[in-house]
């Protein structure tokens, strides 16, 4: 048996890499990839615990998360397309109309 800590550590590492991508990268699409990566890290944690306890709750939660991530990705990408048409750029740095 693989100890649960390996799964959790992997999930944590994936989460951190995803957060880093979210916070640092300028391209909006890369930021979305980071978000997806964070969500998948959470999924991994759920499934790992579900495997540990032998119950199905984690699997079901993971399915929920996948559904929500899909919906969010759809809407988010739609916003990105609209913004890129309006502003002509995908770099988040240059989208500062909410300043002050």
């Amino acid at each position, binding site marked *: 048996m693989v100890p649960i800590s390996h799964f959790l550590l992997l999930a944590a590492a994936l989460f951190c890499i995803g*957060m880093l991508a*979210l916070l640092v990268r300028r391209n909006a699409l890369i*930021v979305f990839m980071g978000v997806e990566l964070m969500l998948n890290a959470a999924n991994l944690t759920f499934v790992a615990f579900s495997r540990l306890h032998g119950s199905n709750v984690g699997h079901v939660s993971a399915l929920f998360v996948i559904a929500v991530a899909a919906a969010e990705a759809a809407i988010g990408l739609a916003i990105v397309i609209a913004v890129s048409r309006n502003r002509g750029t995908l770099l*988040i740095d240059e*989208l*500062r*109309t*909410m*300043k*002050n």
Partner: protein
Amino acid sequence: MDSLQNFFMRSPVPATDLAPSLWWIIALPLIGALVIGAAGKRLGRANVNLIASASVAGSFLISLLVFWAINDPRTSAINEVSGSAIRYAVGHDFGTWFAAGDFRVNFGLQVDHLTGIMLLVITGVGFLIHLYSTEYMSHDSAYWRYFAYLNLFVAMMLTLVMADSLILLFVGWEGVGMASYLLIGFWYSDPAKAWAGRKAFVANRVGDFGFLVASFLLVLVIAAFEQEAKPANLSRAAMTVQEFQSGVDRKGPLAFQTLETFAHAMSAAPDSPETAVGPKSEIASGPLAGFSYGGVLTAILLFFLLGATGKSAQLPLYVWLPDAMAGPTPASALIHAATMVTAGVYLFCRLNFLLVFSPTAMAAVTLVGAATALVAALIAFAQDDLKKVLAYSTVSQLGFMFMAAGAGLWWAAIFHLVTHAFFKACLFLGAGSVMHGNAEETNIKRLGGLWKEMPATSWTFLIATLAITGIVPLSGFFSKDAILHGLHQTHLADGLTWAPHLAQRMGQLAAFCTAFYMSRLFILAFLGKRSPDAKVAHAHESGRAMTLPLWALAILSVAALVYGLPLMTSPSGQGEPVFLNFLRPVFAPGMTIAARLDSVVQEDTGGLLAAYFFAWLIALAGGGLAAFLYMKFFPSRVGQVAPAPLLAIRSFTQHKFYVDELYEAVVVKPVKFVSFFLYKVVDALFIDTVMVRGTAWVTQRVGSALRYVQNGNVQAYAALMALAMVGALAYALMKVL
């Protein structure tokens, strides 16, 4: 003779019918004031003159009827607290004004002999002055405001003298102060004149504070006595303690009837504190616990003295009266000669039954009066302004009245009040006439030679001057000598026998000074040649409306001497002055209580004729010295410079002994500094700048600092969220572990 006496002692209108209509005496001038004040400008000069004079004349006629009624021996009012009769008085209680708990004030009017005399003086002299003012103010465009204020003043003064409780008296007291302020600052566009009005009001206010504190203490004392009175206190008045308490509840603690009953009860058995509460008993409970009744009464009377010095311009609050000459001269004649300034004397005469409880307070009143009489007379020596000399003369004569009131010679004080009203009003109106005919010139050094040019004014001024200096056979002689001789005969208890005698000596000196400065005034203004600095070459005599009141007052100054002649018989069978006999019913309580307490006694040392002769000599000496100096000595040394010490003394006296400057430095400047401090530091700096604007500033700075958090960068927001999450996670871990 008998039928004449019967005519005057049988009133056609019974007093009981007159009693409910007493308020008309006050109402007529008040309505006049309201009508003139509201519509005066539209009514025109003739109508305003008519309304103003007619309302005062109407009051005079009603006062005459009331005076006639109280001369009737059948007239008597009821003391509602003790149930006893008040002879020769008519009164009416119009009901409760306000009540709070067991403190009650009724709106009641009472006219006894003292009030009757005051009514006649106020309305009579007031009417003459209204008549005079119709011509004096004929060139002024604000005549309607003047007559409105004058009528208001008369109404308020009448309230003061007719009030049957201290609170209603205080209403009149304040009212005359306000009317005086309005009249002094009548020409308010001149800031100096407006400031004179303010000064009068502030000085009066200091006195009013004394009056109020005394009233409050009196309420406390009466409340304490109500609780602690023993049956022996009230047996003389044939009352039980319950009846006394319910009487006080019905009438209120500050009604004069209550105070008189209290005084009688308090003095019932002063030497046996076990059976009856007396002046030496201690107050057992309440805020005044621990003090003796006599001590508290002394304090009360001293506070009333403070109030009286403010209103009657005595030391130390006399400083407003000379500055009050900024107002129109007839107003000065009415307010600052005949009526308002006599309110303090009237107060002490009204409270005669309380005054005799405290020889200390009596000595204080007498000495304040004597000191004022002397100081004011000395200041008048060096004044060149006609009206200022008369103002200081008024202060001095009021000092005489206080001397008498403090020594228990209340009849002499009122007698001098009446004669002074006549001759001082005559002098002031004469001064106004002089000003009217000389282009408003008041400096006597620039007048002169008016004897031929203004005969009516000169003759009446001469008569009034002779009256005030105390030359026989004018009335001023009798009234002044009644005071001085009476002081000689006064014996005050408690080791204060020296006080009336010292006051008498100071009074004689002041009488000498009075003769001197008044003669100086007359000689410089009326006799001799016209001064080369005069504004007009020839003076013109004033018209009928001004000279008729002058003659009327001059004749009264002479005729009033009758009241001082010993034509009546006293209860002990000797001859006594008419005034003393007339006022005996009013002052009998004071005299009986004084006899019971043994606080003040009028001994009959005799020597009246010698005293008269000596007083006459003093007046002649003063007048003679003035005549010598100003008709021979000084004119023969024109052009020579006087020695330096004399010049210094003259300058010091002319500057009123620098009292005003002293007050300015000691009182006014600190108050102004405190107010400046409160304004600049507390209000402008602390509240405005630090608290109000400071709060706004802090909010703005914090806001502009926090603004940098909102920079529109989504990733920065996300980073903040991540940091917060890490923090929360660490906190949760620490809690769990």
